[in-house]
């Protein structure tokens, strides 16, 4: 049963959740919901096999003891795969960021402790998360954006850095990559990425109101310099969605509590099954 739960939580729930667009208007709660589903899937996947064997043993199947070894091995495999994937993703990301930070520090102009401006005409804005975090802009960005719009963009990037959205994304990337490929739900990862953007957009909106941020989104979406033929970098449909959400009000007040309750329930399900199984072992 835990195994079935693991499959449902890994493959089915994400697809269903990604379709609930109303969650996007309550991004913080929605992200928590996603995290609960993922954690529950992990718990289910790791504990399913040993518990199944245990149940067989309780049922009096003499051969169950022999199944314990492969069952534990399976759990070990699931756990090992997760840890290994986490290690690979983490190491790679950190190395890439470290190298890129050296680059912007060496080539860019320091505006303050965090912000670096590169002498380049292509308007762009991004952040490098981590201990020595940076917000990177170009001269093209400064030219393209009047003060208030620049404020909105900076507020957006700083929200990513402060809230460590990179860690949230890293967590989901690791889970995604360690799930068996037939169960992977790419729409889940896409939705989580969008939610993180919406969260940062909310922070910017609180600072400047929605209009400057919306203008900045348009200005930066269309302003790529002809000199640099950029290959499919921006996800325009995601930008379009963010624009639409900027115009919308927050989700109705009841939504967040509902999502929190859902998150708690999803997490409780595998734990309850686990508790039941362990309880029967004690009996």
């Amino acid at each position, binding site marked *: 049963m835990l195994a079935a739960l693991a499959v449902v939580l890994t493959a089915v729930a994400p697809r269903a959740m990604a379709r609930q667009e109303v969650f996007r208007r309550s991004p913080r709660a929605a992200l928590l919901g996603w995290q609960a589903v993922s954690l529950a899937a992990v718990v289910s996947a790791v504990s399913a096999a040993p518990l199944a064997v245990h149940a067989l043993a309780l049922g009096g199947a003499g051969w169950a003891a022999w199944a314990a070894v492969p069952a534990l091995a399976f759990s070990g495999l699931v756990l090992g795969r997760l840890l290994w994937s986490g290690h690979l993703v983490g190491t790679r990301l950190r190395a890439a960021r470290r*190298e890129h930070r050296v680059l912007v520090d060496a080539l860019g102009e320091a505006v303050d402790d965090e912000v670096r401006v590169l002498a380049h005409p292509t308007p762009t804005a991004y952040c490098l998360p981590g201990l020595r975090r940076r917000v990177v802009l170009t001269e093209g960005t400064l030219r393209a954006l009047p003060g208030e719009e620049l404020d909105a963009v900076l507020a957006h990037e700083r929200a990513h850095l402060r809230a460590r959205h990179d860690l949230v994304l890293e967590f989901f990337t690791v889970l995604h990559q360690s799930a068996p490929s037939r169960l992977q739900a790419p729409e889940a990862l896409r939705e989580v990425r969008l939610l993180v953007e919406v969260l940062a957009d909310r922070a910017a909106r609180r600072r400047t109101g929605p209009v400057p941020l919306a203008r900045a989104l348009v200005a930066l979406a269309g302003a790529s310099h002809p000199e640099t033929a950029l290959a499919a970098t921006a996800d325009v449909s995601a930008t379009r969605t963010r624009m639409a959400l900027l115009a919308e009000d927050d989700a109705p007040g009841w939504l967040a509590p509902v999502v929190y309750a859902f998150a708690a329930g999803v997490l409780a399900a595998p734990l309850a099954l686990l508790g039941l199984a362990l309880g029967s072992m004690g009996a």
Partner: protein
Amino acid sequence: MPTKTINKLGELERAVMDQVWALGESGEPSVSVRQVHEGLLRGRDLAYTTVMTVMGRLADAGLLVKERGSGRAYLYAAAGTREELTASSMLGQLQGLPSADRRAAMLHFLGDATAEEIADLKAALAEVEKRHGRSNGGRS
């Protein structure tokens, strides 16, 4: 260690590159760590090994090219002017790298939208401005 706190903001990376470029302009395209260190020493307390570490990192990032000198020490040369390196790093970052590496930088404001997509975005902007126009004065 004052040098550690000094370089928390990465100023040393920039100072080293400036020094290498300046030495290049005065006719020395390939320089040793010692030369850069001496150039940077003026008025500050800076360890030779710190400069060596930073130059190693700059070489790893592709900004300096490491060459074997006549003696045992390595020589370093700038891989290009500031403009060239900025342009190539933007290009490299924007199109050369796999998407996972672009995500490493959390790049979200860069666009290569088609005219149609921009028209669509502008329509969405008009909607935002219409709904929130009162609360926000606009850019004029």
